[in-house]
Each structure stands twice: as C-alpha cells, then as structure tokens.
C-alpha cells in the first residue's frame, strides 16, 4: 500500500478570514506565501481593469461583468 502525502497546498482567504497556513507546503516543499498580503483583498471591490482581449477589443472588466458575479484568474502565458 502506497503512502499518501497530505496536500495543504491550498491557501485561501474567504470572507476576510485566512485559513491557517503551514510554514512549508507539504505537496511542493515550497515556503507558503501570505495570501492575504498579495494583491487585492477579500472584502474590497476588485480594482478597475482595462485590457485588450484575444480579438484586440479593449475590455473594461467591471463593465463587461455588468451585474454578474465573476471569476478572474491570473495565469502564466497561454503560450506555454
């Protein structure tokens, strides 16, 4: 029977609370980062953002979103 390694790789902030973050991420061995201190904070309005999309159309995020809820992901190059 193989040993299972527990993850704990997910650091999340929800509704202003930050879940406990172990000092080292067991899944990757990397030092944990302080989620709360990086970028916009839970409870704040997401900043205005205007950038071109894949068709070259300039998109204003909140305007495009309208009154809908949204998922915004930041990722490395789509080229990789």
């Amino acid at each position, binding site marked *: 029977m193989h040993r299972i390694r527990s993850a*704990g790789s997910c650091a999340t902030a929800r509704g202003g609370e930050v879940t406990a973050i172990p000092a080292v991420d067991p899944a990757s061995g990397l030092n944990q980062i302080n989620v709360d201190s990086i970028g916009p904070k839970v409870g704040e309005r997401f900043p205005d953002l205007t950038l071109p999309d894949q068709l070259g159309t300039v998109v204003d995020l909140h305007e495009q979103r309208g009154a809908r809820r949204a998922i915004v992901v930041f990722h490395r190059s789509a080229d990789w």
Partner: protein
Amino acid sequence: MQLVELQETVASSHDTIAVFAVSYDPVVVLRTFADEHGITYPLLGDVGSTVINDLGLRNVDIVEERAYWGRETTERHTGLPYPATFVLDEDGVIVEKIIERSHRIRPTGRSLLEDLAVIAPDDGAQVIASAETDGVAVTAWVASRDYFPNQIFRVGARLAIADGLHLYVPPTPDSYTNLTLSIDAPDGVYWDPPELPEGSQFSIAGLDGEFHVVEGMVELSIPVHIHEDVGDVTLSLAARFQACSEDSCLIPDALRIELPLVSRGKL
C-alpha cells in the same frame, strides 16, 4: 489546464457567471490559444505586466518555484503574476481569493461554482457510490469522471446518521472515535482532510470533559489534486466513526467507497 476547464465547466454553460483570464501575452498569442481550445470568455493581455504589477500580483517568488520544478529562471519569467483566482460578487467585491504556491495547481471552475452556490456539490455527479452500516450511511461522489492533472477538485461525502444516534467530532476525549475521512490512493494523489462541522456540545452523565456531536445529515468536502504522472486512478475513501445514542454506543466502525477516475492527461 485551468483555462480549458473553466470554459467547459463555467463559460459554456453558466453565462450568469462572468469569466476573465489575465496573462502577459500579446493579442496574437491569446487569439491562437482561444481558437485552438474554443475559449469564448475574455483572455486579457497585459503586455509588459503593468496591470499585474499595479495590482501587486507580480510573482516575486518565481525563482524558488521554478527551482522546485527543476528549472532555471529566465527573463521570460519576470512579469509573471501569482497564480491567483478571484471570485467577485454582483457588486464586484472580492468574496474569495485563492493563490496557489505553484502555477500548475489550480482550483476547478466546478469547485468555484459550488462555492458560488450556482450548483449543488453532487449535482450531475458522474462518479457516485454509497455504503452503509448500522446507524450510518455514506454517499460519496466526484463531479467529473475525468480529472485535469494538478487541478484541485473535490470528493464530496454525505453521511446520514440514524435518528437517535450521533457521531463525535473534535475536540473529543481520546477514548471516543472521532469522525474522520481519509483517502487511500497511490503516490501523487494529494488531499486535505475535510473541514468538520463544530457539532453541538454534549455532556455524558458521570464523565468529565466536553463532547461535540453531530446528528442527522453531515456534508463534507475533501480537496484533491493529482500529479500528471498518475494516470487513471481509483480513490478509496474511508469514513471512520463511532455512533452512540443517549445511553449506549455501537462499536467503532468504518465504511469504504471506491471512486474510479480517468486522467485527461497533460494538455
């Protein structure tokens, strides 16, 4: 890959939830990707990473992360954002923020839809099974039979506890078997223990100490992500517990449920 999974799970079927992706790619690269994978939501190109930087999301930990994956850091890697996922409410306020330690390990769109209460955790579950013993029945499921390597999906479980019985949850004295859920699977399968409910306080006549118990229906969720080398795999979920009534206990017991999954492979 998260961008493709978001298209399949969210953008293609739930247009009440807006989806946006931000990278530092120029338009032509984003167009190629969108065409190849049928992406209909905006892929936004922050060439020069100005916005990424202004938002405070430029990944300064990238050197350490790449060293972990056995790679050097070149100029191509400066300007990368942290692998962040934000969930916004109707007013654009951030209600959830997830930043993984590695770009490869990302939450699924499905799990975000569940957090947004757009979809129930077991809705349309493709892999689902049940087991029961005296006093307790367990149903466990995974929404999709296919998993994307490195994406964090959820194993859901619902326990139905017979009337008049309760199970123990921490903190509870050692001699009692607390409810635990665990997964047996090969190396490369990573999971976190589920968050257990606090339960209600319970005293036992003649015994010191605080007991916390749960009754009726309990729903739990185990986050799982699987390395790309694992391939097709069966997750074996074990639930361990001890059911007691007001005045007596059944023996500690366990139930096991097998959940077979297929890998989408490397994209």
